């Protein structure tokens, strides 16, 4: 199906008319996303009875608005207290928290909100226009190409910890090893589970995330009076509307950054299983790799917030593309939506665009409208949210520790996971103190099971022959990107020196 102005106009009006269900979805999503451990898919599962009795268009509107809002609000704790609400916001901590420490927490939040909503909105519109073509991308990436995508992710681990690449690689590889815990995908053989049945399903991501980021940060924070240093307290206290406008101005200045990182998120989101975490880190690394001032990344540089936030919101539209086009959910939240759609008797796949275009396209219109609603709901709140950093740590630290440890339980409902979060908290504390990047460990844990899954699949197809990994054009292009990502940080100084040398010679 091509462009249909009448249908799209009708869907826009209908989506705005569903605001009654989208606003609660947005508000609940903002709350849930900001608390580590309480994910969109879990909340949707809990609320499944409600979504099943709603009309299908209202149910979809509710689910997508909650889903998008969790992606946006996960950046709030990442910026204010250095602990991401979900893995997708882990990359936001790198520059977002540095901005807070400089007394620019309010601006960082505004940048996060605007780049998230604009990035999400751009990709929604692009998806609506290109949906039938985008659906093909997921089909080009098979296990062989996915291995290359994963290796690209591994290289990014080293690039994130650019101060000491070796430490970054060790941290990342350690994360990958931890990601190998649990039963294998083919025979179900338990590996390195220390005898705990709770680890047979693999290392749970939520306790690892909570421990590495929330608990470890709280253990560091408790020696300070407040999150922000004394020099930045006055700046943080004076929350002004002009700071909100300043954040908007910073975002507008980097509009191109929002656009291309959002598209990067969209394309990564289309790949089933890739998700927001990978998209955010890839966007952050690529943004830094192609920046004229890469040395500013990690010091509280606005594009360091824009790139991951725009990308992880670009993912939201992307994960729904394979769901709608081929009936394969791109992520766990999309899988919950699949259940609701199937319950309502909707048959997903290429026929959906002909049989039920109002469903196929309507979900993206609802998403676009939810981003517009979010912009007006959350942007004015940035001024007040920024004040969180002024709460004394003797109150904030107990709040963070108890709530996140409870959050570690919520995902799988095992008390074991609460203990695991504490163990990862100690590991994260040591890693932070000795400059082994915790984000590198986390991305390793995220990539580990996926890497194993695709590697084994590729090896079985190639009957154990490793050269199968270089057997397709797409894979080879990706391998080229891997090499480029490794070499670019070394080549850039050389390339910069050359024009200067030429200029000096001509003088």
């Amino acid at each position: 199906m091509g462009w249909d102005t009448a249908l799209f106009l009708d869907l826009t009006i209908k989506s705005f008319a569903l605001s009654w269900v989208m606003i609660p979805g947005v508000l609940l999503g903002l709350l849930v996303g900001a608390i580590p451990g309480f994910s969109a898919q879990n909340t949707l599962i809990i609320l499944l009875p409600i979504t099943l009795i709603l009309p299908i268009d209202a149910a979809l509107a509710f689910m997508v608005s909650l889903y998008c809002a969790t992606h946006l609000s996960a950046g709030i704790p990442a910026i204010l207290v250095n602990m991401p609400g979900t893995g997708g916001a882990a990359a936001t901590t790198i520059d977002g928290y540095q901005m807070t420490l400089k007394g620019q927490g309010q601006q960082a939040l505004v940048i996060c909100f605007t780049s998230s909503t604009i990035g999400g909105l751009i990709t929604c519109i692009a998806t609506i226009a290109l949906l039938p073509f985008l659906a093909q991308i997921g089909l080009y990436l098979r296990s062989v190409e996915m291995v290359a995508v994963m290796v690209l992710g591994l290289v990014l681990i080293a690039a994130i910890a650019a101060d000491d690449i070796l430490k970054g690689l060790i941290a990342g590889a350690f994360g990958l090893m931890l990601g190998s815990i649990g039963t294998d995908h083919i025979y179900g053989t338990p590996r390195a589970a220390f005898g705990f049945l709770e680890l047979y399903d693999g290392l749970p991501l939520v306790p690892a995330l909570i421990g590495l980021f929330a608990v470890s940060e709280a253990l560091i924070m408790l020696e300070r009076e407040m999150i922000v240093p004394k020099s930045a307290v006055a700046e943080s206290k004076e929350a002004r509307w002009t700071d909100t406008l300043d954040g908007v101005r910073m975002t507008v200045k980097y509009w191109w950054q929002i656009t291309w990182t959002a598209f990067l998120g969209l394309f990564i989101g289309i790949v089933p299983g890739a998700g927001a975490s990978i998209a955010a880190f890839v966007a952050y690394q690529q943004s830094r790799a192609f920046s004229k001032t890469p040395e500013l990344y990690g010091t509280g540089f606005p594009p360091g917030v824009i790139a991951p936030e725009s990308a992880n919101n670009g993912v939201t539209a992307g994960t729904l593309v394979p769901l709608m086009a081929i009936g394969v959910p791109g992520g766990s939240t999309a899988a919950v939506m699949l259940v609701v759609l199937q319950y309502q008797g909707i048959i997903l796949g290429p026929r959906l665009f002909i049989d039920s275009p109002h469903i196929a396209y309507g979900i993206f219109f609802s998403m676009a409208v939810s981003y517009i609603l979010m912009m007006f709901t959350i942007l004015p709140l940035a001024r007040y949210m920024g004040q969180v950093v002024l709460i004394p740590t003797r109150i904030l630290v107990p709040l963070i520790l108890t709530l996140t440890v409870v959050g570690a339980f919520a995902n799988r409902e095992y008390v074991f996971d609460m203990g695991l979060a504490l163990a990862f908290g100690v590991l994260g504390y040591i890693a932070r103190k000795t400059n082994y990047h915790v984000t590198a460990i986390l991305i390793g844990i995220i990539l580990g099971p996926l890497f194993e899954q695709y590697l084994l699949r590729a090896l079985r197809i190639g009957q154990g022959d490793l050269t199968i990994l270089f057997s397709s054009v797409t894979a080879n292009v990706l391998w080229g990107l891997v090499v480029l990502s490794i070499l670019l940080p070394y080549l850039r100084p050389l390339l910069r020196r050359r024009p200067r040398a030429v200029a000096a010679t001509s003088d």
Partner: protein
Amino acid sequence: MSEHNIGAKDKPKPALGADLIIPVLAAGFTIYFLVTTSDVVWEARANGTVIGLTLLTLIAIQVVRIIALWREGAGTMSFGEFGRMTAGHQKRLTVLLILVVFVATIPWLGTTLGLLFSMFALMWVLGVRDIKTLVGVSFVTAAAVYLLFIAFLKTQLPAGPIEHLLQPLFG
């Protein structure tokens, strides 16, 4: 940040021994993985073996680098702040102990009561002495978690006396 203000001469040498804690933990886990999976089918150990051997190689390079730095006199083999019991560490260990007790007793105390006690204890350890703040913040936190996650969202958080008592009221 204050490190930048300290003169180069006064700056203590980096504690290189501390840089070995994570590699030792990583190497220990990798060896455990490789040993315990040595007799399983190749598909079950292929991924771990590839990554594990890469990790052990990286750790070996790091060890060699640290020894080289130590021999150059660029650092000491001490564990820095990990090697001594500072006031901060004492506070940290007490906080961790409270959390361990919280996790260990939550199946009996339940989430609400566990949160109430642990919030109170944690704030006390971190220096809050105002009784209104101690009781007020602990109560509001426990009540908010109960209302939002147990009463409204129906999350299956561990139930104790409070949850059982309020069950007829909130379902």
